[in-house]
């Protein structure tokens, strides 16, 4: 119990006192000790427990997505296997390595903070920032690649067998974005370096960090482009827009892809696209697998519910007054231009993919902001062996973001 003499005077307002990093000159001794804690140890324990609870909260936030993934993969394994061939394993692996490297660096940075090694804190955190931006660069190229092919989430899924979709075509901008990112990033880095060498340490390191981010983003795009050209580019290189989507997967999976069965796979899991005039366009040539081929001779109405009729879906169909058997849904109900089939297909898989990786990417961006903040504070020399809680907490957060990707990568990219 604190003795009365060490407590604040009654007039002391709590303004300006922070819970883990504020300045408080009330004579507690350490400048980083907030007014309502008794000592740095209590403050450290509180901050660390708070962070672990926050991480528990994050895990449960993601767990909703993983639960949705599990339920649908359990019900529609063939959809997942078919659709995941559109994901680029090499790029996923590159991103995994990038994130693992960043996690190593940030853990090293926490160790450096414990040892009062300011220079290493700064270097490791800037390296982590670079990795984070590289990750986003690769992600950008992956997303663009998908959109080029017409693979978007939900209603934006307009895949028609590897054709370049006019709606989602901005892959051509990526090289420009990459070049400008590298040029601007390098300039900003250079500016930061000059500032840092001219005794404006905090400004220098923060500017340098932002520069490294922009530079790495550009490098990420270059890296992704070099590792694997997009399918749109392949299509242009080959000079035709025919079905070839599986071509980049064939070497990776090492199994020959069967020839697409045009016209018969009306109800394959790759979501037949029904045009507005009632014609049905075969959509799934590119990814037809042996399972699909085996199902091709079944009547469509049976393929609709391969696991047995789903009661909710059946009920909803009745409610909506639809005729069963795969006839187009009433588009007015949804306000959609092209009605989708009332069954789980590739559009749903990519919805899960985009939501999960998108939520993860938002966390990466939040991490970039948090790490930049740590860099600023480290450059201002606010951390010491006694007080390094923010470094540790941001490090923990970053490990969690890394860990989520460690699960996402096999669950999305490496399905069998």
């Amino acid at each position, binding site marked *: 119990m604190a003795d009365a003499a060490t407590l604040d005077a009654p007039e002391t307002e709590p303004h300006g006192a922070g819970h883990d990093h504020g300045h408080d000159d009330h004579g507690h001794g350490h400048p980083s000790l907030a007014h309502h804690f008794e000592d740095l140890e209590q403050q450290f324990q*509180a901050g660390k427990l708070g962070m672990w609870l926050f991480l528990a909260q994050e895990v449960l936030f993601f767990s909703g*997505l993983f639960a949705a993934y599990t339920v649908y993969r359990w019900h529609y394994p063939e959809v997942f296997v078919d659709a995941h061939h559109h994901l680029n394993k090499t790029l996923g692996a590159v991103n995994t390595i990038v994130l693992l490297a960043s996690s190593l660096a940030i853990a090293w940075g926490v160790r450096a903070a414990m040892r009062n090694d300011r220079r290493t804190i700064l270097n490791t955190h800037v390296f982590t920032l670079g990795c984070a931006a590289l990750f986003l660069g690769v992600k950008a190229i992956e997303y663009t690649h998908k959109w080029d092919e017409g693979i978007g989430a939900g209603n934006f899924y307009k895949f028609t067998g590897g054709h370049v979709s006019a709606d989602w075509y901005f892959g051509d901008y990526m090289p420009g974005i990459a070049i400008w990112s590298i040029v601007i990033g390098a300039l900003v880095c250079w500016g930061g370096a000059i500032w840092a060498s001219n005794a404006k340490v905090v400004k220098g390191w923060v500017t340098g960090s932002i520069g490294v981010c922009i530079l790495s983003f550009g490098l990420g795009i270059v890296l992704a482009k070099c590792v694997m050209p997009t399918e749109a580019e392949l299509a242009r290189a080959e000079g035709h827009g025919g079905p070839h989507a599986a071509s980049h997967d064939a070497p990776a999976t090492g199994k020959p892809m069967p020839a697409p069965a045009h016209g018969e796979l009306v109800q394959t899991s790759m979501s037949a696209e029904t045009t507005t005039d009632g014609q049905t366009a075969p959509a799934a040539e590119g990814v037809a697998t042996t399972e699909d081929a085996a199902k091709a001779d079944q009547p469509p109405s049976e393929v609709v519910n391969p696991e047995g009729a789903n009661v909710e*879906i059946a009920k909803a169909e009745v409610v909506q007054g639809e005729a069963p058997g795969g006839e187009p849904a009433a588009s007015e109900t949804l306000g959609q231009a092209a009605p989708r089939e009332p069954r789980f297909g590739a559009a749903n898989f990519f919805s899960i993919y985009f*939501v999960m990786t998108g939520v993860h990417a938002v966390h990466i961006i939040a991490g970039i902001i948090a790490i930049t903040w740590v860099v600023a504070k480290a450059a201002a020399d606010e951390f010491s062996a006694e007080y390094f809680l923010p470094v540790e907490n941001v490090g923990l957060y970053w490990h969690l973001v890394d860990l989520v990707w460690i699960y996402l990568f096999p669950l999305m990219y490496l399905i069998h």
Partner: protein
Amino acid sequence: MISQSREHSLLEAITADPSRKVYIPQGRSYLQNPPGTTFWQGVASWVFTLDHKRIGVMYLCGVMFSFLLGGLFAGAVRMELWNGTPDLLGDTLQTAQDNYNQMFTLHGAVMTFLFIIPSIPAALGNIFLPMMLGAKDVAFPRMNLASFYLWCSGAIFFIATLLTSGLDTGWTFYTPYSTTTSTSVILATMGVFILGFSSIFTGLNFVVTVNTMRPKGMTWFKMPLFLWGIYATAIIQVLATPVLAITLVLLMCERLMGIGIFDPLLGGDPVLYQHFFWFYSHPAVYIMILPGMAIISEVIPVYSRKHIFGYTFIAYSSIAIALLGFLVWGHHMFTSTESKLAAVIFSALTFTVSIPSAIKVFNWLATMYKGSIHLNTAMLYALAFIIQFTIGGLTGLFLGALAVDVHLHDTYFVVAHFHYVMMGSTLIAFLAGIHHWWPKMFGKMYNERLAQIASGLVFIGFNLTFFPQFILGTQGMPRRYAAYKPEFQFLHQLSTSGYFVLGAGLVMAAAVLIYSLFRGKKAPNNPWGAATLEWKCCSPPTTANFEIQPWTGSPYVYDDFVFDPDEGGYVEVLPDLHRSAAVPAERPAVPATH
């Protein structure tokens, strides 16, 4: 319980030697700014305050405003149901029914997300959790303020929902209707998403504060039971709310992009939405009721002048309710394609929740047994809580029983059941807490007699409103319908009459409290003779709460407290150092008088 003779001897002792009264220094109220503060500085001192008590007061104003709003929606619903034809809320049958759907949805959503979830933890918990710990603030004061502003932005989204096309999905946002209706589902779900993070941050703050900032001598099992209840609540807030957040993100994506997770027309599964939703919202029921139980566990021993009975059991039962609460969400889906096996398991787990709940009720009764019961307003509300919670809890067993639930599902029986728990218990406990702590929060005494009359009106009005709904439900009146058959009319009219009695009671209670702010007597430090730490500072407290760190004794031993007519309240009496050898070792040898 303190014997009369002991009370008498304590009174004699302090008359003979006033220095034996524990000295509590007075200081400037946290509500006031230093002299010379300009108006705008005063405003800024509230807007940017990091003081947990000021944040709690701001929350209190916010949740009471939401309660008023939700109550007016409820009034619209009840008045529409005065007769069986939907005619009040619109000119045509169609508009009347549409508006009725909006009214019950907004009533449910505002009451649940804006009022009842933040009510006790964020308002009363914020003020009293650090004080019960003898601490100066919660662990993360800035996060605390941020959570209040998150609450405000969530409220703004709700108001935007109201001002645009409203909301008619029911507060549960069930798919596929919520993905197809033309009302402002995105705005409302965005509001709930933000309110969820407000709730998470509050809970996180409380868990850390209780874990790391207990004073020396206050071990886990010497904490006041209010802290146990709030702690259990906070665990649920941290662990369940993020699931709702991601569910609502998916719902928004479903509406915006048609991702086909929940919409059956796109291959999704609407029952998955129900699972996700209730995985949060069933534990959220315990977010609502546990803090209410926590208040009752404080109020009953104080006004019975007797140590709480079965302290350890009450403490563990809070944790048990919190954990079991995570395992029962499936009982909301007995009638929606749940497998028989899952239904039986969820039904059995639902029954187990009644064990810790009953433990609490029996321990409260045992605390009162042979106590010296003072029927102050807070105690009257506590008694109403016990009655209504018992009814609400027992009817929950009917609904947890599979065969009965099939008949009662989506009837007024369900409506009556959860209003008995949510309103008849949580709101009543909230009122008990407000009346119990009002002198400490604002330093004023309210008119006890009028407040007691108001509590009687609330009790009668509440039961008149909701008891007929049990009967309506068993007779087959479905919920969420604006029209009904003529034979239900009498009970509906009883219920609507009850609404007005209840409203009169609540308005009267509010008037009594608000009047006391302006004309009330100055409150003594400890008007009720409570032994928890928040009463060991001046009323209202200073910004730092305790000018002298209070001695941490047992929160429920009233032996050393006696009513001192000079102070107009209770004082703690120190042992006689000259005569008694039995001085507790931890107690300071010299009374801290400054």
